[in-house]
């Protein structure tokens, strides 16, 4: 009967209840959405690189090195000479190394020169290897393997010819027109910046710049693809390299050795540490967003209590009738609490649905525009904590009209003041 009373009483005031429900739904969806996005973004962020023990580049800050080597954001300050690279990777503790050469692009997507070790050793998320969705890894100098998104966005198929541009802008005035590349492989989607990368061999990077000097073609010294293949294509330098160790125990020792490398100034970073530092910087914004959504929720809850308080006056008769029929004032208190909890519960369910639908619709766009891969699993353990906290908060706020009903019931008796 109590449940029936609460349900029908809410239905009786469905106009205001509907608006309350709407505002609560939006604010709870906002809160859960931001919470969901931030955990997902953090996951997506920290899972970009895995299994790599050290990233080595020319001397710079660790964030800069992390950003250009892993996230393809920004540029390297200097390069590492090929002999230095060769010397370091001979270290007995090093299991594998992936050289990276950056600086060119293809229609806004970064080109990364590397070798085939990249496909066998690079790991992301929970130690997942890269998988070729189509084709194979590059074998010839002018072969290229595309990230999933590059292929999808630009509509490239296997065996298609593409041209690279010098520099990293979306529109480049200096093209490597004379040396086209053939698409030989397309990687499966990873949800990391790998999807937005065009992979070529280190030799290819060397080849397209053979007839260049100081970032511009040397006039009168154009080489054709065939001519370049005849040249020595050993790279002179690389931008950075990733290192996997035989034993993780050696990480700090090797890091110090590389940082103190005599031949040229280098920096070695631990990707996990650097990622954590970067995330900490972004954490400020994330916490601010969460705080704002909490305040929005509080405003919506206060709004609900306000409408409830306003309705108490017109519900005096209802309360008096219940009292006359034998209801204890506690019963009225519980009735009001139940109404509030019902509305909140309903709003939480619809908020979860709203969140799911909007994420479902936005998933592709978020992945494409921001590289954020958001799962649709909206209801998880933390959202249950949130749900509990929201219910508790609404119950606490509902004590205001509840106590009012209780006290009025005691004071007014059976008389109804209209």
């Amino acid at each position: 009967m109590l449940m029936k009373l609460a349900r029908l009483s809410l239905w009786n005031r469905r106009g205001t209840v509907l608006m309350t429900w709407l505002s609560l739904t939006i604010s709870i969806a906002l809160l859960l959405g931001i919470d969901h996005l931030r955990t997902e973004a953090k996951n997506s962020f920290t899972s970009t690189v895995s299994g790599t023990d050290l990233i080595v580049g020319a001397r710079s800050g660790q964030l800069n090195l992390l950003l250009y080597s892993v996230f393809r954001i920004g540029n390297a300050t200097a390069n590492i000479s090929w002999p230095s690279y060769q010397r370091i990777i001979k270290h007995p503790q090093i299991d594998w190394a992936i050289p990276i050469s950056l600086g060119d692009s293809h229609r806004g997507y970064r080109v990364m020169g590397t070798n085939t070790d990249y496909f066998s050793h690079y790991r992301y998320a929970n130690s997942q290897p890269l998988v070729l969705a189509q084709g194979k890894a590059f074998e010839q100098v002018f072969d290229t393997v595309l990230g999933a998104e590059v292929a999808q966005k630009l509509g490239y198929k296997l065996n298609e010819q593409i041209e690279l541009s010098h520099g990293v802008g979306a529109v480049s005035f200096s093209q490597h027109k004379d040396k086209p590349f053939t698409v030989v492989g397309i990687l499966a989607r990873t949800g990391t910046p790998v999807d937005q990368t065009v992979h070529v061999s280190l030799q290819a990077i060397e080849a397209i710049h053979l007839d260049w000097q100081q970032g511009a073609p040397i006039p009168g010294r154009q080489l054709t693809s065939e001519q370049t293949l005849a040249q020595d294509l050993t790279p002179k330098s690389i931008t950075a390299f990733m290192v996997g160790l035989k034993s993780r125990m050696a990480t700090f020792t090797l890091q110090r050795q590389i940082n103190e490398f005599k031949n040229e100034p280098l920096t070695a970073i631990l990707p996990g540490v650097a990622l954590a530092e970067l995330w900490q910087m972004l954490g400020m914004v994330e916490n601010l967003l969460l705080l704002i959504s909490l305040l929005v929720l509080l405003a919506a809850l206060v709004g609900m209590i306000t409408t409830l308080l306003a309705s108490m006056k017109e519900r005096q008769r209802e309360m008096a009738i219940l009292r006359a029929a034998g209801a204890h004032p506690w019963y009225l208190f519980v009735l009001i609490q139940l109404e509030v909890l019902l509305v909140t519960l309903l709003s939480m369910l619809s908020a979860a649905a709203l969140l799911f639908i909007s994420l479902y619709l936005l998933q592709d766009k978020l992945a494409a525009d921001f590289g954020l891969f958001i799962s649709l699993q909206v209801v998880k353990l933390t959202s249950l904590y949130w749900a509990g906290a929201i219910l508790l908060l609404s119950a606490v706020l509902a004590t205001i009209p509840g106590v009012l009903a209780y006290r009025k019931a005691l004071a007014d008796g059976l008389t109804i003041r209209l």
Partner: protein
Amino acid sequence: MTDKPKIPAIDLKQLQFYYQSGGWQLHLPELTLHCGQHLFVRGASGSGKTTLLNLLCGITRPVSGELYVNGQPLHQLSSSARDSLRAKHIGVVFQQLNLIPYLSVLDNALLSSHFAGQNKTDSVSRAKTLLQRLGLQQDLWHKPATNLSVGQQQRVAIARALLPKPTLLIADEPTSALDSDNRDAFMRVMLAEADANGCTVIFVSHDQSLTQYFHYQLDMQQLVKGVQPC
């Protein structure tokens, strides 16, 4: 008429009530009402009728004196004990707007038995019989209470008041919103049902013409002087 000493439905002695803020006060020296008696209490507004009713049904507690309803010392019981006593033993009918607008007729009638903690299925069947006897046909039972005429609403209120088989029925000017035809019908059906349940009735009104339905009548002025009903 009685062969064994029966507990009076209402027995009050030196009952006093006043508000903390002071000023007005009500003092009732003595009143005894036996089971099945119907008492008409007449009084102008402001004479303490409402306070008397609040005291009798246990909403307010007397400041001093003794008040027994159905043998229970109301002046000593806790507020929740008074609430459950009211649910089980006292039925209340107001002037008007007795029903909760969003509940159906049947649910409105069932409210009191719900608070009295009575068996649901049993209550439902009794409520249906009671509603039928009060002239409310089956097609009305599941309609919202607001769809009924005032006369019908007041009859639903009687059904609600009588459903838990109370020993005492308190009516606070239940006919004031009715026209004379409806009023006569209402009075007859209410008192007949009260009689059928062996229920004591206290009926408060300022309408002199209603005295014809009652064996016992008192003025508020007589009541405060301690005159017994006759």
